[in-house]
């Protein structure tokens, strides 16, 4: 009798933008990610869920080449992260941004074009117009000249999405894009992400909100250092998988096409 090999993600998907094979990474000799296998298909909307400290942010940073890996490979359209990552838009966690920095919305979006312009050269009229166009796409054309600290949480998040758009990305990576954002902005952000998917941009977002992922995303990654499950939310948000992911008890309730998740972390503590 042989032990069934434990699940560690899968690599088979058609037309992948990002592929990760057997990736390990960590900080100070403690692993944050183990044996991660993953692929992100073009035009898909994928949510990453898992407990705090389960490696959600590290997962994104490994793809972006911001965390040096222990082993394994990441490929972005066949290129290594350092060569391919300019094809990835990134929206960092709100807490990682210095909102008091004296820049306005347009300045931030313009930064998305810097990689294309090359060293030393200054952004010109063309870049400014394109940046304004990106701001208009997220519905913030009228706020171009406002300092980022004056914007609401949802607007700030959309400015960063506009900056990612200014990179003309193949994939968009967002770290907790809707946490601390009001319901109206949340809806606007998802409409935007869905529109991007339809245009062929792959979207990968972390979230701590399971019902949001269940309702809005096509696929979900359950991550707790390793990938516990990867598939359609209705398939992977089962009591067993979620309990394994969160190392605690979960109840899932299905009503029509929507699954609702009831967490009871207290039971286990």
């Amino acid at each position, binding site marked *: 009798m042989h032990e069934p090999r434990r699940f560690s993600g899968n690599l088979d998907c058609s037309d992948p933008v990002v592929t990760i094979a057997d990736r390990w990474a960590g900080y100070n000799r403690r692993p944050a990610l183990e044996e991660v296998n993953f692929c992100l298909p073009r035009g898909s909307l994928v949510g990453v869920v898992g407990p705090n400290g389960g490696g959600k942010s590290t997962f994104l940073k490994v793809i972006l080449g911001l965390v040096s890996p222990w082993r394994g490979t990441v490929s972005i359209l066949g290129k290594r992260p350092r060569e391919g*990552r300019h094809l990835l838009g*990134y929206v960092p966690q709100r807490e990682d941004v210095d909102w008091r920095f*004296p820049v306005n919305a347009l300045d931030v979006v313009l930064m998305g074009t810097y990689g294309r312009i090359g060293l030393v050269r200054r952004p010109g009229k063309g870049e400014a117009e394109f940046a304004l166009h990106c701001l208009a796409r997220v519905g913030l054309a009228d706020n171009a000249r406002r300092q980022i600290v004056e914007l609401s949480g949802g607007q700030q998040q959309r400015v960063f999405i506009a900056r990612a758009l200014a990179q003309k990305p193949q994939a968009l990576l967002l770290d907790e894009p809707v946490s601390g954002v009001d319901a109206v902005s949340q809806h606007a952000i998802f409409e935007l992400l869905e529109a991007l998917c339809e245009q062929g941009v792959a979207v990968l977002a972390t979230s701590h909100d399971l019902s949001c992922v269940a309702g809005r995303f096509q696929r979900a990654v359950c991550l707790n250092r390793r990938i516990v499950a990867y598939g359609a939310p209705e398939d992977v948000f089962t009591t067993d998988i979620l309990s394994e992911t969160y190392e605690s008890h979960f109840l899932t309730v299905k009503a029509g096409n929507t699954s609702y998740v009831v967490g009871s972390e207290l039971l286990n503590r």
Partner: protein
Amino acid sequence: MSWVLSFLTASVGLLLEPLRFSFMLNALVATVLVAIVCAVIGTFVVLKGLAFIGDAVAHASFAGIATAYLLGGNIYLGAGFAAVATATGIAFLSRRGRVSFDTAIGVLFVGAFSLGIVLMSRVRNYAVDLLNFVFGNVLGVGQEDVILVGVMSFVVLGIVFVLYKELLFYAFDAEMASVVGLPAALLHYLILVLLAITTIVAMKVVGIVLVVAMLVTPPAAAGLLTKRFSRMMLVGTFFSIAGAVIGLYLSYYIAVPSGAAIVLVDTCFFLIALALPRRLSLGPEPQKAAALTRGR
């Protein structure tokens, strides 16, 4: 009408009078150059929270000065070497993140400063020279110092001008700068090396202890009044030049140390900017600012 004219002649006379002396002319040129460079680099220092490093680099460079003094070498070269070494050392430690950042700086800079004092105590004019370097002596600035300060200022400002967009992006969001394809590691070291050169340039004028105030105070005052990076840099430079000129004249007419006078004028600018009604000072609203500090 005549009293207006005589008032004007008198004030012009007061302004020109000190410049009869070549040492005052040298001092004025050197101080204004230093003021400009400090404000430009200081804008990055304020926004990136590098004040403590700036202080450390200035203090640590004292070890280099003392060594150059003992060996009879060029003082600027010694100071520059020590400053750049400290700055890159701190940059290296901070990228590795093995020791707490503040602790590493604290250990390094007081250690190097003490080494400087010990070495300096072996020199004959110990007390006088020590004071000159610690508190600055702008009146001792000679022709060749002015040329050196001019060249170094030109180099620092030139680099900031050429790499303005990269430095701005790096200062705002280092991770994203590297994702987009900018050489983030290089920019990290570059900012600290520019900071090191700036402190050396400023040292002769304001001294090791006061350098940090020239770096931080004018841009901080400007930051309270402006919304955009470029404007913060420009307004900060204006404050810095005004503070330098006013401070220098004060030191001439009421016979006080020039470095301290300049820093005090800068401090007044800062306090005035702070006291302006919030409507004018376009900074974040208090409630929002509190939320931000909680988040960080």
